C-alpha cells in the first residue's frame, strides 16, 4: 500500500510530465469531489431528483459544459443509499471519467463495443448519449464484474445493450462496429489521493504485465472496428508505458491516426518522448488530464481512426 507520505517519491518519475508538480502533490491530500450523472432515460423531470436530494440536505450544482452532470456537497454523502440511486435516476461517477465517451461521439443506429465495460458507467453514458438507440455490446471478461454491469444496466433502464463475457483480446470478429471504447484496465495512478491510498493495481497484482494486456486489447479493438471507424483508448493512469507507448505500438503496427478532440476540461498533449524512447508524433494529439487541474481523476484519452 502506498501511503500518502510516500506519494512524492512514487510520482517523482513523472515530474516532467505533470504540470506544476508541487501543486499536484498538494492536491493529492484533498479527497475526490463527488459528482453524479442524471439519467434522463428514467427521469424525464430533472427537478424531481434535484429537489429530492436537496431535501436530504445535499447541495447539488450543475457542472458547466457537462450536460447532466452535477457536483454534490458534502462530498462524503452516501449517494448510493438514496431513493434516487435505487430508482436509477442517478449514476455517481467522476467528471473525467465522462471524457472517453465524449471523445467516442456515439450516434443512434451505430454498433458500439464497450470492450472493458464493467461496472457500466460508460456503457450507460453511451446509452444516454444516443437516446437508447445505439446497439451497444457491453463486454467484460470477469463474471463478478459483469454482474455489476448487468445490475447497472437494469437499474438505469437501458434497453440498447447486450452483455458478453469474452477476453477482449480474443473478442470474436463478425459485428461491423462503428465505434469501440477500450477503457483499459490500468494501474489507476490517476485515482490516487487521500482516501484512495493503496488502490494502485500495480501493487495488488504485482506480476500483471499491464502494458501487454493493454496492447492486446487495443490491437484487437482496431481490428474489430470497420475501416473509417473510431477506437477510443483511455486509462485513468499517468504512466506513459500504459498510455502513449500502447498507442504508439498500434500506430506502428496498423494504419491508424489520432484524431484531435475538444474536451470541456483542461488538458495537455500526450508525450512524444519518454525515458529515451521517441513516440509517433501523432501522440501529441492525445490528451492528458490531471487531478489538480480537473478536480477529478487523472485520465489519458486517445481518439483513433482506422484508416485501412
Amino acid at each position: 500500500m502506498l501511503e500518502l507520505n510516500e506519494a512524492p517519491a512514487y510520482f517523482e518519475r513523472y515530474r516532467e510530465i505533470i504540470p506544476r508538480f508541487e501543486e499536484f502533490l498538494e492536491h493529492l491530500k484533498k479527497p475526490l469531489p463527488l459528482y453524479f450523472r442524471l439519467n434522463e432515460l428514467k427521469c424525464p423531470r430533472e427537478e424531481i431528483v434535484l429537489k429530492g436530494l436537496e431535501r436530504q440536505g445535499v447541495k447539488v450544482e450543475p457542472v458547466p459544459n457537462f450536460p447532466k452532470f452535477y457536483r454534490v456537497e458534502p462530498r462524503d454523502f452516501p449517494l448510493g443509499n438514496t431513493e434516487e440511486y435505487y430508482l436509477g435516476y442517478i449514476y455517481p461517477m467522476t467528471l473525467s471519467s465522462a471524457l472517453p465517451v465524449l471523445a467516442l461521439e456515439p450516434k443512434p443506429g451505430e454498433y458500439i463495443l464497450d470492450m472493458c465495460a464493467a461496472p457500466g458507467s460508460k456503457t450507460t453514458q453511451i446509452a444516454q448519449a444516443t437516446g437508447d438507440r445505439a446497439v451497444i455490446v457491453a463486454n467484460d471478461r470477469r463474471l463478478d464484474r459483469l454482474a455489476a454491469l448487468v445490475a447497472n444496466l437494469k437499474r438505469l433502464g437501458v434497453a440498447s445493450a447486450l452483455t458478453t463475457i469474452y477476453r477482449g483480446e480474443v473478442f470474436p470478429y463478425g459485428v461491423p462496429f462503428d465505434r469501440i471504447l477500450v477503457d483499459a484496465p490500468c494501474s489507476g495512478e490517476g485515482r490516487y489521493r487521500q482516501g484512495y491510498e493503496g488502490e494502485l493495481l500495480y501493487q495488488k497484482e504485482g506480476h500483471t504485465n499491464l502494458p501487454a494486456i493493454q496492447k492486446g486489447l487495443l490491437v484487437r479493438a482496431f481490428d474489430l472496428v470497420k475501416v473509417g471507424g473510431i477506437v477510443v483508448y483511455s486509462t485513468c493512469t499517468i504512466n506513459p508505458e500504459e498510455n502513449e507507448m500502447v498507442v504508439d505500438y498500434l500506430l506502428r503496427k496498423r494504419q491508424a491516426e489520432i484524431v484531435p478532440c475538444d474536451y470541456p476540461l483542461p488538458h495537455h498533449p500526450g508525450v512524444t518522448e519518454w525515458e529515451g524512447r521517441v513516440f509517433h508524433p501523432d501522440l501529441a494529439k492525445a490528451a492528458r488530464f490531471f487531478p489538480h487541474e480537473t478536480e477529478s481523476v487523472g485520465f489519458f484519452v486517445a481518439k483513433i481512426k482506422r484508416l485501412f
Partner: protein
Amino acid sequence: MKKRRKKIHKEAKWPRVVSLEERDEVLSFWEERFGIPKETFADYLLLSTAKNYWLFVKPPELRPLQNLQVQTVGLLFTRRVSKWLKPTSTALQRFGHLATRNVVELTPSELDRLRRERRLPFEAELEEGYVVIKCEGKVWGCGLYAKGKLISYLP
C-alpha cells in the same frame, strides 16, 4: 473460475425474436392496460426467453449479433404469469411515466407500508389487475389491485 465461465457460455442462448402476433399481443396489453401507445416501442425488438419478454433496440441487422455468446440482451419487459401478462417493475420504472390509466398514486407513508408489508387495504376507481405504483412523481414499479387490496410486486 474457468469451469464456471464455460458453464455459463454453454447455457447462454440468444433469445428468440417473437412473431408479429405475439409482439402485438404484448404491446396491446401495455396499450390497453396503461394507455401507453404501441408506437412508443417502435424502435425496439421484442425478444423472448421461456416466460420472459425482453425489449432490445432494433439493430440495422440482427444476424451479426446472433453469433455472439450473450449473457443478457436488453431490458426485461414483461413476464407471462399463467395466462396473464405482467409488466416488470424495471420496465414500468422506465416507461411508466407515460401511463394514462391504472396508475396508483401513493403517499410516502403508504408506499413505505406497502414495501414493508407487501400489501395494503386499498379502494380506488380502478380496473382490477396490474397497476403502476407512483409516489411524488416517481414511478416505483408494479402492483396488483384486486378485491380491495393493493399487492406489491416491487423488487
